[in-house]
């Protein structure tokens, strides 16, 4: 086909149930969520011509393409950096469509991260080797010192920020309480119907003292999430209201690591999120005030604060007050993680929050923003981000 700049849009989203024991293979979860995203769009899986997942997804492109009967795959790629780069999947899909290289790009992430292996436990011997493409040397330099889990690396990263601005663990509780309130109203959420109080948060056990309690941490989940990206013109002819992919970006500044991120100049900020923000706002001509909702990667609650500040929703050190005063609620300035986030809904490596952004634009969220018409939603996974827009 003749190549020309082509606007990109999300035409379909799909997911499996979110559980602690899926009882089936990761490849099956991948196939099921991919089929669901195609059905949602009204596109045959046979017509997928681009495929994107994470470097650490265990399912092979060819095996998944075989499940879906993909007839002629034109482009496959994977994003490095685990969940921090989750939104980079959209970045690449947008670029592939923009460049006129693909018509139907499938993004997927499927894992049995609770029943088959657990990110939150001490690593198994075979996981203790440095793997390129994960963007982190954390195991290498942390394991002999007893920092063996993402929570330990995340706490070390958050410590300087929390100390600098006097952010207490109780302050973080407001994030967890808000997200669990959203989850309590979302039938897909693992914690559907199970809200928590600030006291529940404060009574949950220390995972990393004095920074993170259990209720500051994302879940460990089984499940799969998929997104189908196509051209805006084509999306307009499909089943759902198109969700325009108006901007997407990635940023890995010098000396930044994915989560073992202790080597860059100022440890009280998240330079990668600042870099993403700078690119996104420049690319779209939009600003924080133009966003009616945000889905922000919340592997650990302090990183929500760091990203709110990096994107300019709050000044440095002020995100804790923003959250405390209800800034993330449906009545607040920026309804955030309205699916319940990765702590309330599920942890499918950030992907489940990204499809909640799509629902907010479509107007189909279980916690729909109603005070304002949702024109723009920010997705941030820390090292990558995207802006979704109504057509």
């Amino acid at each position, binding site marked *: 086909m003749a190549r020309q700049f082509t606007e990109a849009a999300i035409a379909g989203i799909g997911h499996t149930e979110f559980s602690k024991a899926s009882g089936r293979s990761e490849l099956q979860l991948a196939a099921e969520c991919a089929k669901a995203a195609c059905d949602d769009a009204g596109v045959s899986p046979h017509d997928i011509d681009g495929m994107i997942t994470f470097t650490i997804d265990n399912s092979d492109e060819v095996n998944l393409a075989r499940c879906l009967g993909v007839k002629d795959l034109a482009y496959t790629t994977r994003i490095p950096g685990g969940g921090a780069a989750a939104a980079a999947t959209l970045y690449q899909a947008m670029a592939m469509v923009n460049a006129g290289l693909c018509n139907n790009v499938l993004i997927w992430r499927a894992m049995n991260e609770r029943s088959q292996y657990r990110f939150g436990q001490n690593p198994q011997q075979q996981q203790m080797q440095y793997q390129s493409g994960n963007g982190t040397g954390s195991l290498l*330099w942390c394991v002999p010192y007893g*920092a063996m889990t993402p*929570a330990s690396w995340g706490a070390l990263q958050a410590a300087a920020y929390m100390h600098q601005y006097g952010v207490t663990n109780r302050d973080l509780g407001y994030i967890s309480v808000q997200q669990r309130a959203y989850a309590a109203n979302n039938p897909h959420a693992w914690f559907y119907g199970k809200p928590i109080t600030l006291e529940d948060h404060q009574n949950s056990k220390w*995972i990393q003292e004095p920074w993170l309690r259990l209720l500051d941490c994302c879940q460990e989940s089984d499940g799969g999430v998929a997104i189908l990206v196509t051209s805006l013109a084509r999306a307009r002819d499909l089943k759902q209201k198109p969700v325009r992919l108006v901007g997407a970006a990635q940023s890995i500044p010098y000396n930044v690591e994915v989560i073992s991120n*202790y080597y860059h100049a100022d440890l009280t900020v998240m330079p990668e999120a600042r870099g993403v923000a700078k690119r996104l706002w420049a690319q779209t001509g939009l600003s924080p005030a133009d966003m009616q909702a945000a889905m922000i990667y919340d592997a650990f609650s302090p990183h929500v604060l760091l990203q709110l500040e990096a994107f300019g929703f709050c000044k440095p050190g002020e995100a804790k007050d923003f959250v405390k005063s209800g800034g993330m609620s449906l009545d607040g300035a920026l309804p955030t993680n309205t699916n319940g986030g990765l702590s309330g809904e599920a942890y499918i490596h950030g992907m489940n929050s990204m499809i909640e952004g799509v629902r907010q634009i479509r107007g189909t969220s279980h916690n729909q923003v109603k005070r304002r018409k949702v024109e723009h939603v920010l997705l941030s996974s820390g090292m990558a981000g995207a802006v979704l827009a109504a057509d």
Partner: protein
Amino acid sequence: MSEPETKPTRIPPIVTLDAKFFWDGADREEFLGERCGDCGHYTFPPRPMCPQCFSLKREHVPLSGRGTVVGWTIPRHPMPFGFKESPVVAVIELEEGIRMVSNVVEVAYEQMKPGLPVQVAFAPTMNNHKVPVFKPRSA
């Protein structure tokens, strides 16, 4: 380690070619850093090329072993493999201007604070290796 007769349970370092000098030095209780042989820039983690002048000439030089605590955490759950009590894991900024993750030992949890001055020491691991750790020092 207050009970030298018990076998160390700490996991040994994962050694890569570019960092072998660091861990070999630690085995001899030498605290070595990597400095560019051309421009003098210190790097951590060690790497094959100087990010400032692109030189491949690496010098492995003794570090002062003095630093300060930038951030710390106490892993409670799960208890890290190889530890009987929660260690203090910390990001240490060394006098040479580089940072590394290590443990602060012989310290009460409530003593931990940013800027705490520390001095290198060595702790044994499984398989007869040693890793640099830090103890509080008077400023």
